[in-house]
């Protein structure tokens, strides 16, 4: 490594650097300058600094979209660029929505950890080397474990964090073990090197074992069945902004990682080698689609319902990963970004209702259309988009994804069956989304008192809803960045 390439590294990772600096600045300001202020004031200030950090990083990223890659460790290409920009926007939105949260007396630490997690996500999306991948994943995961436990007044928060941590720790161990086998088999930690070695070497049982171990680790990150058990409890117990972060940015990063790992272990030159990985993905996808959708049917907590629906959506995206064409990878990225945006909005709305009614049970949403029509309207947009009703963006994402899966040349055998399963199950999903919307619009609540919402939160939620509608009506716009079709 010479000096020039280290400058190059700084240049490439400048957005991440900005985030790190911002997290330190937030800590210093919160602990040093604002110590004596009220908790509410400190929360707003810390979140504002956090948002500013995200914006600065985003600004740098947008103005320097084509930084040269740093060897085979960190790459820069259009899809990484889109994923990173998306992650920054999602984290910024999460921070905006957490300005009025009252769960913590340590807002500085909270925001700093969110920024660190965001750094982890951005590195995960760009990393193309097993070691960097693992370190970035751990940065992301450790931040999220702590964040999940951040509400010290609620036992559920600790339970959520503990479950997340235990499952996460175990799956990280599996992942590392799988990586070590991959390294042992191929003699390199770079994904490009692994892809080349995979073509050259024989197909050994150890290769399949290592793939299974990697699948365990990554399956946990995207909450795919059978590694999904943490999701409902964590989604329910963690503070709402943290759940939003776990469900959005972390998902985008993990799917970006799945795309790059798939590119390595399913070498383009030798399809036969990749079959076992594709089969693994398909099993996970099918099981997630079925179990996620059926599990969501019986939930009475809206957060758990969204957790099961997240499992189902992960299943759809895994289909796109398994198809592994460039179109399907673009479609997965499109899906992950738009799904995450919608989910952030949904959790933001849930958090507001929760604060007003004390819990997130379905009944708490009764009469929301009377109590706050605008909030109810945003909820309508989010949930219908998740259900895949046009002209909302969720529909385009699904259409684009399934069209790409059907088009994949090597997918002939399974693609039609899996798409039929996915579309059939998405008809089931309308039932549970409507269960929520029925409470919001149809059922009369016990009270008609209006729910107060801070203008900034409402503005954020409305902006997300408008984005969901506009991206649905003009799907070509995002197509400038992610190739459609």
């Amino acid at each position, binding site marked *: 490594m010479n000096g020039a390439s280290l400058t190059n590294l700084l240049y490439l990772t400048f957005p991440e650097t900005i985030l790190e600096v911002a997290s330190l600045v937030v800590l210093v300001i919160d602990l040093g300058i604002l110590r004596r202020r009220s908790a509410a004031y400190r929360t707003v200030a810390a979140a504002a600094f956090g948002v500013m950090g995200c914006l600065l990083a985003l600004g740098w990223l947008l103005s320097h979209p084509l930084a040269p890659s740093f060897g085979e460790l960190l790459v820069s290409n259009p899809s990484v660029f889109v994923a990173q920009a998306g992650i920054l926007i999602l984290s910024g939105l999460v921070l905006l929505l957490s300005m009025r949260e009252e769960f913590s007396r340590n807002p500085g630490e909270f925001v700093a950890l969110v920024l660190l997690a965001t750094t982890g996500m951005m590195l995960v999306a760009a990393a193309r080397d097993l070691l960097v991948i693992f370190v970035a994943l751990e940065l992301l995961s450790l931040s999220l474990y702590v964040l999940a436990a951040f509400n010290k007044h609620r036992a559920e928060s600790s339970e959520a964090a503990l479950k997340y941590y235990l499952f996460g720790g175990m799956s990280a161990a599996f992942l590392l073990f799988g990586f070590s086998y991959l390294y042992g088999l191929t003699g390199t930690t770079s994904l490009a090197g692994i892809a080349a070695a995979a073509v050259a070497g024989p197909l050994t049982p150890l290769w399949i074992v290592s793939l299974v171990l990697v699948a365990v680790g990554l399956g946990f990150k995207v909450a795919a069945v059978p590694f999904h058990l943490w999701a409902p409890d964590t989604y329910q117990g963690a503070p709402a902004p943290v759940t939003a972060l776990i469900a959005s940015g972390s998902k985008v990063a993990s799917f970006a990682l799945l795309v790059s790992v798939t590119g390595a272990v399913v070498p383009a030159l030798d399809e036969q080698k990749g079959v076992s990985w594709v089969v693994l993905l398909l099993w996970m996808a099918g099981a997630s689609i079925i179990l996620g959708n059926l599990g969501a049917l019986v939930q009475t907590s809206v957060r758990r319902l969204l957790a099961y629906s997240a499992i189902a959506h992960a299943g759809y995206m895994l289909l796109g990963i398994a198809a592994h064409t460039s179109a399907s990878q673009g479609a997965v990225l499109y899906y992950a970004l738009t799904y995450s945006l919608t989910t952030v909005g949904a959790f933001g709305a849930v958090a507001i209702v929760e604060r007003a009614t004390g819990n997130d049970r379905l009944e708490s949403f009764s009469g929301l259309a009377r109590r706050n029509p605008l909030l109810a309207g945003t909820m309508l947009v989010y949930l219908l988009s998740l259900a895949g*009703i*046009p002209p909302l963006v969720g529909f385009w994402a699904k259409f684009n994804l399934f069209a790409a899966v059907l088009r994949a040349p090597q997918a002939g055998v399974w693609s*039609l069956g899996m798409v039929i399963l996915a579309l059939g199950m998405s*008809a089931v999903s309308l*039932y549970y989304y*409507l269960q929520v919307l029925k409470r919001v*619009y*149809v059922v009369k609540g016990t009270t008609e008192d209006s729910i107060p919402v801070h203008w900034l939160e409402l503005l954020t939620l409305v902006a997300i809803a408008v984005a969901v509608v506009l991206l649905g009506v003009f799907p070509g716009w995002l*197509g400038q960045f992610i190739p459609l*079709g």
Partner: protein
Amino acid sequence: MLAYTIYLSFAGALVLALLPRVAAGFARVFALAIAVAGLAVGLTGFIQAGTSGPVLIADIPWIPAMGIHYTLAADGISRVLVVLTGLAAVAGILFSWTVKERTSEFFAFFLALIGGVYGVFLAVDLFVLFVFYEIAIVPKYFLIAIWGSTRREYGAMKLALYSFLGSAMVLIGLLAAYVMSGAHSMDLHTLAAYQYPVSFQLWAFPLVFTGFAILAGMWPFHTWAPTGHVAAPTAASMLLAGVVMKLGAYGCLRVAMTVFPHGMDPWGWSFLGIGSWRTVFALLAVIGIVYGAAVALVQNDFKFVIGYSSVSHMGLVLLGLMTLTQVGIDGAVLQMFSHGVLAGLLFAVVGCIVYERTHTRDLAILGKLKLGKTMLFAAVVFAIAGMASMGLPGFSGFVAEMQVLMGAWQAFPWFAAVAGIGIVVGVAYTWRALQRVFLNDTPVTEPVEDHAPYAPISWAEWAGVLLLTGTSLLVGLMPRLLLDVIAPAVQALPHILVAGGRG
């Protein structure tokens, strides 16, 4: 020009949705104005185009990367159905003049539904068609679940899930067709021109056809229809029976049959005389005709009678489509129009004129109220609507049913005979309802509790009744008004669809 029917409706819906607390009076006048404007645009487009071929309305690249264009065009079939939608919308608003609860939201959902329906009838790009088709699902759910009556949440959810399941089946077929053609286009004509392998069409056709036919109330997937119609508020019942079921039938003709015409080819083997999907669906249609009529004959809820009669009448539409003859498909389209008008009228009498005043739909209780004397208007209107819908010459139903049966006679003589029996049963259930509700002269044994005199018939009800009855009479007396527009459009369908299919 016709595209403004869509934009006006959605704009109206948006305005009302953003003004949830506006006065009820304003909301309904505003909604009526929008609907009348939509009807006026539709009629102008209908008259201007005359008997000409398809009129291109809009063609803008929407998502160039996926080859999807925002293409709207109206051939004769579309223009007729657009006029029907306008009529149903205006009449529906007139008959929901008394909605007091959350009026603004009611009309917002109502107009959104209407906008979706217009869109489906005008779309040429199948993607656009599908988008509008799904847009129509959600407002239906809320209209029924919020403003409905008997088991409304159940009825609404059943309707939404059936529709969504149907549209999932359609989407699978469309996706497969899109990918398979490789043309990178979802334009109806491009896809229809592509020669899909017959083996592919043999599974894609029944999938897409069934997906659409669910919404058309095809037996045995009709069960959403009676419960949905009964649960829905009057205006929504009128729309459901009047235009939403037509969406299904229209999709069957426009998408399933046009894109996959060889799906109706013979399988090469036969079981009990059934040798192709065409026979299968014709058989299901005939079962629907007879079953719907027979079940309507034994209902005690006035609305269930009409609900099942809709299943029966939509069976005639599907049978007409499956005849694959010019006259049969002409008849099917005309029957769509005729049933749209008449079912709307029947639901209006039952749900609005009678129910709003007596607060019951039970035939036995209604019989004791001597409605033939106390509510002569309702009795007369029901008699007219009932006779028109059972196929009395002079009304639209007669011409339509006649043509469907003529087509069916050429294609499936036995089915035509059985469908004829269904029509006779139709006479029976209409007379039964008329007799039990309005002409009941059994002496009343226990005195009926006194009630305030019924509210007089309002101007809105008069206007709605005159609009719908007048239309049916006009079309019945001068069917060429519509047939001259429909026939060239049917002729322009792929030749195989009007030439009796293959084999």
